[in-house]
């Protein structure tokens, strides 16, 4: 470590004002602060500081995402070998999924961080850590077969137009990862929905070659119930990709077709535990999303006209991106409501809207993305009214005493 420190000190003058490589200062700074805690000391105000910084915060979120990512990778392999009818070991499945997902992670990071670094350089600022989380979220919420160039285009679009034009991390109105997904969804709908995109049937780097077996169908459970002919829920059954029935435990552990991050409710809950225990994610937002969902489902159930309207609440929570969105997307502090009371309202409405879109929208079986993006837009309004109550109280006090 000491040698590295010496090397950094040696090359530092090149990047400082007047140095040959000054135009790369933000990049140098990003790597230096990644390796070593900056030794700048306070100039004004408090003389001591809390050890938590932006890097630590983002690392915790990434840590919380890891379980869902790993299970998701395994599931990619599992679904693939099921689709081609081969029995393979646990590790082979995982490795296949790892190889399938890794390029997406790399592409999303390279494109996103590239833009972030360039922007920071242009603005002569430090590189913000926000994209470290966004970059891993993006591959987790898109279908596994999304072409890499689409991910690159969508990431670039989202980072530039949803974040940088507003001023960078901390100033964006919409969740950047969700904008990426929304961009893909509306630009390339055929690659983003339907029953062909959720299971990777092709080989990955030559691994797992094989033809799809007869009777294969790659529809997600939510896709199935959205398009079913069955008149009520009791006549309907969820099927896996080879036509096998899906149990609740398959849905809980994550052995169903779907995006990488969203399939395993167990892994998502593990992430929730990490976020709540470390205080990084707001339990209020998470809980209120589920409460909102519950209320919506109970309402819909009581006026049920078809199978999806009759679907019990636990299916709603286990399937699709509901849990993932509630834990990892709705809690994004920048785009969520920032007042505590506001978070209850914000989360509740996300849950309510997500279920509403799911049940009543004929074209698209998932509602979480649109619900969160919609509430992102309304979060400042919610905060406005929460804060306005405080302001009114203060104004009233002032006039009473006069």
């Amino acid at each position, binding site marked *: 470590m000491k040698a590295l420190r010496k090397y950094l000190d040696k090359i530092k003058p090149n990047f400082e004002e007047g140095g040959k490589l000054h135009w790369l200062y933000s990049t140098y700074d990003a790597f230096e602060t990644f390796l070593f805690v900056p030794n700048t000391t306070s100039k004004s105000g408090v003389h001591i500081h809390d050890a*938590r910084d*932006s890097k630590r*915060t983002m690392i915790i979120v990434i840590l919380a995402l890891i379980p869902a990512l790993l299970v998701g990778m395994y599931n990619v392999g599992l679904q693939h070998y099921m689709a081609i009818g081969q029995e393979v070991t646990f590790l082979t499945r995982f490795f296949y999924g790892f190889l399938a997902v890794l390029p997406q992670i790399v592409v999303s990071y390279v494109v996103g961080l590239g833009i972030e670094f360039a922007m920071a350089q242009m603005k002569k600022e430090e590189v913000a850590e926000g994209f470290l989380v966004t970059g891993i979220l993006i591959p987790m919420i898109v279908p596994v077969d999304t072409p890499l160039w689409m991910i690159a285009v969508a990431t670039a679009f989202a980072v530039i137009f949803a974040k940088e034009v507003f001023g960078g991390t901390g100033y964006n109105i919409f969740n950047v990862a969700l904008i990426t997904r929304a961009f893909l969804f509306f630009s390339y709908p055929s690659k983003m929905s339907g029953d062909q995109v959720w299971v990777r049937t092709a080989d990955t780097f030559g691994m797992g070659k094989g033809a799809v077996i007869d009777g294969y169908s790659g529809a997600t459970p939510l896709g199935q119930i959205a398009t079913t002919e069955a008149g009520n829920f009791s006549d309907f059954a969820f099927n896996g990709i080879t036509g096998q029935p899906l149990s609740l435990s398959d849905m809980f552990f994550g052995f169903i077709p779907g995006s990488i991050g969203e399939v395993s409710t167990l892994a998502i809950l593990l992430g929730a535990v990490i976020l709540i225990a470390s205080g990084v994610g707001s339990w209020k937002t998470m809980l209120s999303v589920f409460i909102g969902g519950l209320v919506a489902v109970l309402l819909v159930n009581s006026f049920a006209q078809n199978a999806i309207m009759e679907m019990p609440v636990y299916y709603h929570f286990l399937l699709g991106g509901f849990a993932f969105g509630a834990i990892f997307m709705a809690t994004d502090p920048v785009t969520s409501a920032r007042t505590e009371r506001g978070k209850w309202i914000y989360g509740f409405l996300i849950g309510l809207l997500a279920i509403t879109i799911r049940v009543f929208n004929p074209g698209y079986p998932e509602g979480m993305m649109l619900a969160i993006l919609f509430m992102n837009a309304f979060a400042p309004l919610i905060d406005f009214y929460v804060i306005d109550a405080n302001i009114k109280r*203060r104004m009233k006090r002032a006039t009473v005493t006069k």
Partner: protein
Amino acid sequence: MANRIKIKKGLQIPLLGEAEGTLRGKVTSEYVRICPEDFHGVTPKLTVKVDDTVKAGTSLFYDKNYPEISFASPVSGIVTAIERGEKRRILYVEVKADSAVQYEDFGKKTVASLSGEEVKKSILDAGIWFLIKQRPYDVVAVPGKEPRDIFVTGFDTAPLAPSFDFILNGREADLQTGFDALAKLTPGKVYLSVSPKTTNKALREAGNVVITEFGGPHPAGNVGVQINHIKPINRGETVWTLSAPDVALIGRLFNEGIVDLTRTVALTGSEVKQTGYYQMSVGTQLNSIFKDNVTEGISLRYISGNPLTGTKIDADGVLRAYDAQLTVIPEGDDVHEAFGWASLSPKRYSAGCTYPTYNKKKYRLDARLLGGPRAIIVSNEYDKVFPMDIYPEQLIKSIIAFNIDKMEQLGIYEVAPEDFALCEFVDTSKLELQRIVRVGLDLLRKEME
């Protein structure tokens, strides 16, 4: 029985180096320096020249805008230097102190027989009016404005803060006289806040004041928090604030007829070998008590005041006007910690839960920012350590935007920079919140007056 208020939000930062409760003697220095920048909102105009002879209590300078506010020399001697900085701003006035202090005689007075105006004039003439601060704006009180109420905090909850019980030991009579004097200055009430731990009888059983007991972590001892809970400041109102030791200094003026700005000061901090209390006058050079009493071989930060709101001073710096505490902590600029973001080190302290806690009681924190400045990202961070009916993050944003209407609506008149000290400590984004509030208050004052 006093009213009790329990503060729930806040944070007691567990630092090493609390002052031992022993008085270690009186500290004097050859030169005494008074720094006008301590007195916020004051534009100093000199009344002395180099080589003038002054007594303790002689005015050194006065406020250009309110000439009745003068600033007393804490010692007697000869003015040796007037140091100026950029734009000819006065950095300090230096007085070479006599070995025996000669006091300007202001005459002993019985407060009970004085009118409010006479009390005010006595304090102003003696040059210790600066001990009274006002809100809004957190500046030296404007004598012409009648305060709605006067708030006195009888304890300090800041990290490593001195015990007011200890400081006021033996000053009971002065303290009560001070309260009596303050009561004459306002048509409202004088509110005194004590902590559940307060034992000093003069505080517990003070007369002529309304006593409220505040329990809970820092900033329960901040006068701003106390005002917000007792009787918040509204637009157009003015209140005055003091700390109990300063009330005793005012009391001393009436009881003894002299200006004696001798404070009992706690020497604290993880790098101090022998902590404890010292008596010294405002402006005393501190090299003698730091010498051979601090850790050697690393770079150190000397603070006049506490680690949250204190002023950075040099090793030969002086005790600043309002401080009853000196702190020495490591500077930390010689530390290169690898992969801090992944650290599980027990040396790191965080108020949140992003670091493991190892059952460790006290920490040795240095002056590093431990991160780079960012936009405000994490929400509900400031609120947790801000026990006032105010939205701190939104107020900060309105100050940054300098939106006067919004600032007023969100309660700018109720706050002082010190109220944001804990917010600044816990801030993940490492923003200079106290400076932002200070600048905001100054601009607002300029705008409104």
